[in-house]
Each structure stands twice: as structure tokens, then as C-alpha cells.
């Protein structure tokens, strides 16, 4: 019994790390621009495919692949901001229009990936081979890297937004665009940085996930949906709450899987999310509206 629970705890930690990386990317874009990026999962998928191409097809090594995947995703993120989000700044229905344009971007990326890379399953090698035992539960060393890396990355983002000039400028733009512009912050540049950073995070997550799961054009959909749940539970407004909610959802999910099995778990998660939203219809996003 204890062993099962510990195993669930550890696999919850792995899931939580994944969700935390995904959701914090969504959060960066939301807090800066007030845009919910539906293409976030697809950017993750692109990161995985590019990492695979560079690392496996071109044989340049896994680390180069991961770097390339992160970079290409970041560039695509900036492109999405430029073409699909920026034209609608200041529009009264910007939030809803960008939901639609980023949804379109998701379709384009997914179908584009299918054309470029085909539907055949691909997988990346692991960063480190072997297994690691945590609390008596065994996970692959690669998963352990993910678990260790996620808090470091989250911490780095947190320090970035809190301490650096650029990071602070993103927060300023998110809180008051006009005031930010009047102290000399280039608002469109801040938007592009936020999108690029968020997309880089998605690409990196995808490249890391590509060693654990199969790389397919639709591999980003499920993490995106889970990140949406996280975001609803924890709010998009603060990175700490988002990350906390991510680990919480990861744990709940892992425990539910043990308790109810694989099939009922997503159903219960979605039900929880709807119930949370019904009872906290506002303020979940940290009073952004």
C-alpha cells in the first residue's frame, strides 16, 4: 500500500514537472499580453520534432537537438505574436480573436508537422541512461532530470521577472501598458520577448518529453489541456501559484490513476476543474479582468 502510494507520488512529481513547465509558459504570455495561447502545445511538439531532426536525423547529438528545438520554438513563438496577435492589439475583442488565431496556429503547426515529419512515431534517446530510485520508487534517470530541471527553470523565470530589467519590464507591461510605454519600455518588444520566452519553454519541454513519450504531431494537445486545468486551478496571474497548482494536479492525477484507473482519471479532473470554475468564476486569474 505504502509502496503504491510512493510510486504514485513519484510519478505525480514527473507529471507535475511537465505541467509546471507548460503552464508557466502560458502564464508568462497571459500576464504580459492578456492572451491565452492555444498554440502552446503545438510549439512544444515542434520543439520535440526539431530536436529529433537535429539529434537523430542529422546526428548532431541530443544536446544540440534540444537547443535547436528550444530555439526554433522560440522563433515560431515570436512569429505567432507578430502575425497573429499583434494585429489585434487594442481591439476590444482581442482576447477572443487571439483565442481563434492561436487555435488556427495550432492547426497549422500540427498539420505542418504531419506533412514535414509524417505520422510515424519517433522518439529521442535519453539524456542519461539508467534508472533512479526515489523513495523506493523507480523512474528513469531521464525523468529524474526532468524532475530536477523543472524547479530550476521555474526559479530562473521567477528571478528573471523579479530582478532583471527586461523581466520587470514584462511585468510592467502586463500591469499597465500605457504607463510602461511612458517610461520608455517598448511594448511590442516586450510582447515579442514574452511570446518568445514562453515558446522557448514549450520547445524545451517538448524536446525533453520526446525521450519519454512518442513524438507525434498531436503530442502537444494533451499537455496543453492539462496545462489549462492547472491554470484554472492555480490562476495565470502568479508564477508561484501556477507552479504549485501544476504539481498539485500532477499528484492528484497520479493518485487518481492508482485509485480509479487510467480511464476515469481525466474525467474526474475535468469535473473538478468545472466545479472550481463554477465556485470561483472570477479571481482565479488573479483579478486580470
Amino acid at each position: 500500500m505504502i509502496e503504491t502510494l510512493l510510486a504514485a507520488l513519484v510519478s505525480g512529481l514527473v507529471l507535475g514537472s511537465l505541467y509546471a513547465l507548460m503552464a508557466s509558459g502560458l502564464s508568462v504570455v497571459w500576464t504580459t499580453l492578456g492572451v491565452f495561447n492555444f498554440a502552446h502545445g503545438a510549439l512544444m511538439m515542434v520543439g520535440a520534432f526539431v530536436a529529433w531532426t537535429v539529434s537523430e536525423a542529422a546526428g548532431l547529438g541530443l544536446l544540440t537537438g534540444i537547443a535547436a528545438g528550444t530555439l526554433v520554438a522560440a522563433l515560431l513563438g515570436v512569429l505567432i505574436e507578430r502575425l497573429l496577435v499583434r494585429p489585434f492589439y487594442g481591439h476590444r475583442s482581442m482576447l477572443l480573436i487571439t483565442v481563434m488565431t492561436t487555435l488556427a496556429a495550432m492547426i497549422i503547426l500540427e498539420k505542418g508537422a504531419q506533412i514535414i515529419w509524417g505520422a510515424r512515431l519517433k522518439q529521442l534517446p535519453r539524456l542519461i541512461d539508467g534508472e533512479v530510485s526515489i523513495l523506493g520508487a523507480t523512474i528513469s534517470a531521464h525523468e529524474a532530470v526532468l524532475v530536477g530541471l523543472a524547479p530550476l527553470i521555474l526559479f530562473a523565470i521567477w528571478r528573471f521577472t523579479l530582478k532583471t530589467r527586461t523581466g520587470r519590464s514584462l511585468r510592467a507591461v502586463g500591469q499597465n501598458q500605457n504607463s510602461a510605454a511612458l517610461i520608455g519600455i517598448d511594448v511590442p518588444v516586450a510582447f515579442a520577448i514574452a511570446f518568445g520566452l514562453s515558446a522557448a519553454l514549450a520547445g524545451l519541454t517538448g524536446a525533453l518529453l520526446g525521450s519519454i513519450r512518442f513524438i507525434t504531431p498531436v503530442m502537444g494537445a494533451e499537455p496543453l489541456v492539462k496545462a489549462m486545468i492547472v491554470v484554472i486551478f492555480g490562476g495565470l496571474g502568479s508564477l508561484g501559484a501556477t507552479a504549485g497548482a501544476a504539481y498539485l494536479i500532477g499528484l492528484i492525477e497520479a493518485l487518481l490513476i492508482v485509485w480509479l484507473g487510467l480511464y476515469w482519471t481525466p474525467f474526474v479532473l475535468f469535473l473538478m476543474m468545472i466545479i472550481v470554475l463554477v465556485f470561483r468564476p472570477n479571481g482565479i486569474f488573479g483579478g486580470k479582468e
Partner: protein
Amino acid sequence: MDNLLTVSGVTAGYGPITVLRGLSLHLGAGECIGLFGPNGHGKTTLLQTISGLIRPTSGSIEFDGRELTRLRPPHIVEAGLVQSPQGNTLFGDMRVQETLELAAFSKHARDDRQSNLEKVFALFPRLEERRPQKARTLSGGERQMLSIGCALMCAPRLLMLDEPTLGLSPRLKEELAQAVGSIAKEGIPLIVVEQDVEFLMALADRLYLIEHGEVVREIDRANAPDHDEVMRLYFGEAAG
């Protein structure tokens, strides 16, 4: 003419609504001017247009011999043309210290960050006390101080203040008026929008009365009206 700022024939507004109708004014080097006039007649719109937040549909704005009309806000701030906007709410979740540090954003402002910060704290000792406090938790007067402080951190070569004493108690109003006075004494050219004409008369070299998006009267030392005339100008024409 070696004006620091020349606004000529500027027409601007919000979408289909035209607010400024061919407005012209100028500010000489080292000068301090005041703008006044009834509410809703375009003073804020003018400052926003000068700062690049609103694109004029015609006319031109020249600062220090340089055409600014089509520049975007960050480049205008970089040039040294800075404003503290009306009713500024700033960044609610940022601390006072952080906000001031961030405000020294443009390249030339960064070099003087430390000395400017000291100047701001000397001008508003209250801000220094509230350094770790979030902007959201400040009182109205303190926010106004923070807003002016931010503008000073941008290392302005011309500072525009949009109703710096709006909605403050008489005591705070006095405090801020004095602060504005000492900024002027430092030699920073100012454009001050105010409802309190007496204050403006004491502070500024020249005043512009703005109505319906146009300058309807320019007042300087030579044609300075007496108290009664100002009252008539202000309330009489505004009511009419």
C-alpha cells in the same frame, strides 16, 4: 527660433472622434509653460499625442530640432521628452523601489540611475519610507509622487505633468505644488496641466488656455490678466 518643443497644427483624436483641431504651441529653451481649460477639451489628449501614444492625423511635433511626429513612445522617452500622466495608476503589483529602478529604462537614463534615485527621494522623502511597499497599497498622494518620481527617473529634458494635484487634499496639494516648484527651479523645462490657475501663474512663464482642442488664448507676463479676469476667462468662457 530655438524652441525646445514646437507643436504645429496638430489634429488628433480617438478613431472617428477628433479632439485636437490644429493645435499649435511652443516652449522655449529653459521655459516652463502651463496649460489650463475646462475638462474634456483635449489637454490630456495633447500630452498623449506628444508622447506618441496617439498618432496625430495631421500637423507636426518637433523636439529639440528633431521631428517626433511619427516616433513611437519609447523613442520619444529616449529623446528626453517624458510625462507623468493624469490619474496614473502605475504598476499595482510592483514595489516603489522596483518601479523607480525600472523607470530609468532608456539608455541615457540608466547612467544616472543612482543619482536620480537620490534626487527623487530628496524631493519626496515619503517615497523613501515606502520603498518596499506595492504601488497598489499607496495613497493617492503617494501614487502621484511615485508617478512624478518615475518621470524624473527617465532623466527628462522636458517634463510634462498632467494634473499632478488632481483629487488631493489641500495639504497634499500644497506639498506637491512645492515639489513641482523645486523641479522647475532645478532647471528642468516643464509643461504643467492644472485646474488651479493661480498655481500655474506663479509657476509658469506662459499659460495657454485650451478649449475645444484649440489654443484660444496665450498669456504671458506682458498681458497677464488680474485675478478677476482669470476667473472670467476660466469659468465664463467655459460655461458658455
